[in-house]
């Protein structure tokens, strides 16, 4: 385990003590052995305590943690087989979104997800998970293919948002996102979206209009990145933590508001401490929801999806 976030300092301290005792190995004296066990218990207790009451801003740090499992990791850990499809058949292949058919629990599904990439080189290759319009066009192509063959679609969401360059405007970032929302609204196969890290703005929504929306326990979903929201409301990024709090972005809060369907538990200290367990938890949740959705006739499914989105957003009438 590696605790490297600001609020994890007390945990890192304990971890260091544990490591130094562990290094003694065979030479550990009996009272040191007892001490080691005590430290380990303490670490678990403190971790649980801290993670039970993360602030919104701390959750943002966890959701963005560089060691968190990404889409490619989840695909690798959850699927028996995967064949990556490339390209939007128009302009290029945007590696900020990856996808293709996969064998999942013995059945073919279409998996599509944002991929941030690990390390400098990968991050450049995947544009840190921030799609260009081509990425959304590729996603639409894959979804329509899934519809043709009757495969359910699983989307893994993990992006700060769509990329914001002049070239993206030239190639129609807005149109591309709108087209993806449109395709998902009427797609005639089950769709499950799971936020595995950051659900950032329209760039995330574009692949998460779904029959079921799941979120990993320490993931976030924001109307705009907290920094962007702070500069919109206050014209200053330094208010990002307060803005994050006010916007209610954590999976737990969104679950409490009834805006997501399931909260998928993460390993102690966050998904980055145990990729395998995180993937197992997500896989179990996905299997459960897939089984439910497969029972529903497709007309009814599309109807229910419509009603779900139609109903969102409370309002009142001034007297």
């Amino acid at each position: 385990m590696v605790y490297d976030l600001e609020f994890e300092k007390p945990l890192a301290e304990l971890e260091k003590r544990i490591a130094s005792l562990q290094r003694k190995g065979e030479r550990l004296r009996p009272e040191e052995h007892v001490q080691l066990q005590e430290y380990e218990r303490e670490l678990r207790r403190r971790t649980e305590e801290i993670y039970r009451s993360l602030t919104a801003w701390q959750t943002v740090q966890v959701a963005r943690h560089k060691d968190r499992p990404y889409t490619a990791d989840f695909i690798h850990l959850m699927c028996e087989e995967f064949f990556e499809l490339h390209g939007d058949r128009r302009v290029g292949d945007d590696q900020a979104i990856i996808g293709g058919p996969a064998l999942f629990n013995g059945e073919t599904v279409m998996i599509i997800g944002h991929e941030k990439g690990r390390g400098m080189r990968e991050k450049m290759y995947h544009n840190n998970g921030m799609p260009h319009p081509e990425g959304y066009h590729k996603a639409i192509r894959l979804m329509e293919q899934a519809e043709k063959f009757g495969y359910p679609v699983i989307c893994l969401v993990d992006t700060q948002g769509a990329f914001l360059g002049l070239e993206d405007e030239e190639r129609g970032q807005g149109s591309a996102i709108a087209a993806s929302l449109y395709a998902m609204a009427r797609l005639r196969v089950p769709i499950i979206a799971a936020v595995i890290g950051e659900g950032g703005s329209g760039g995330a929504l574009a692949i998460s209009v779904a029959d079921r929306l799941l979120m990993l326990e320490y993931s976030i979903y924001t109307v705009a990145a907290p920094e962007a929201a702070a500069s919109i409301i206050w014209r200053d990024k330094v208010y990002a933590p307060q803005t994050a709090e006010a916007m209610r972005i954590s999976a737990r809060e969104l679950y409490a508001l009834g805006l997501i369907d399931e909260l998928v538990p993460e390993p102690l200290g966050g998904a980055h401490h145990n990729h395998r367990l995180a993937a197992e938890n997500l896989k179990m949740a996905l299997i459960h929801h897939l089984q439910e959705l497969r029972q529903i006739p497709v007309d009814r499914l599309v109807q229910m999806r419509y009603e779900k989105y139609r109903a969102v957003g409370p309002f009142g009438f001034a007297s």
Partner: protein
Amino acid sequence: MAKEAAGSSGGPQPERPSGPGVAPDNLMVKCPKCKEILYSRDWEKNLKVCSRCNYHFRLTAHERVSLLLDPGSFVELDAAMVSVDPLNFVSRSQSYAAKLQEERAKVGLNEAAIRGYGTIEGLPLSLAVMDFRFIGGSMGSVVGEKVTRAIELGLERRWPVLVVSTSGGARMQEGFYSLLQMAKTVAALARLSEARIPYFSLITDPTTGGVTASFAMLGDVILAEPGALIAFAGPRVIEQFMHVKLPEGTVNSEFVLQHGMIDAVVHRRELRATLARLLRLYKVPEAERAQQSAPAAQSSVEAATLLSRQPAQSRAEVGGGQDGLRS
């Protein structure tokens, strides 16, 4: 991404233009683009377009309606609809609830969009029109609901639908609810499309963020006023994000037209006639026999269940019943 209303110098008078450059007295206005001083009377006669440089000043939602619809034909619906502040949003001790009250008093509208129906050269349509003065025309639950209802009215009556956009994007203070309005409005548009009812999108200055990335860019025909900022990310956002400097007016109507994202850039004085032409061209096809003309979710489900339960011979009757309903 919603910018706060950049030019809310309009004061309490709801009919004053909201754009930058409105002079304090009502006799003269200054064009923010070419700095020309214009006589208010000429300027208003010219539909608030600068006679020197063709700059299209921003219009309020009601000004837009008077510009486009047949006089007296507009019937506003849901005017009293208001946000209920679903997150109890408070940031740095400023509450969204207070902000809403302030905006309502300042702008004289309950929200950043109005909706209703009316006619253009006698042809009926359902429409929603946004107003940039109200928290930067940002889309929260009320804007999303009004746009959706405008689409649903089109479905119900089989009238074409027009949405006039001007927006900084999703409203931050309603968080995820705001973002989901993109999905809600688009899902409604998908139904409209399946019912083969035309949807016209008119994009005006400025339109960015979540509105650009949803209903604004999905029109069967997409029009824009000249020189309007139209982008997913506006130039300021791109500059901050990319650490580059963009020349003035990089991302505007002409730019998106050139890149194939919209169908036409139309001068304000031609808009009404253009929409009338489109309404004449895009005749609404009859609803399909077996298909539902009503938007009501329940009724189409019921019809579907009904159809599947009926023996084959009586299906025609069900279809016939639909025709009866439609007329």
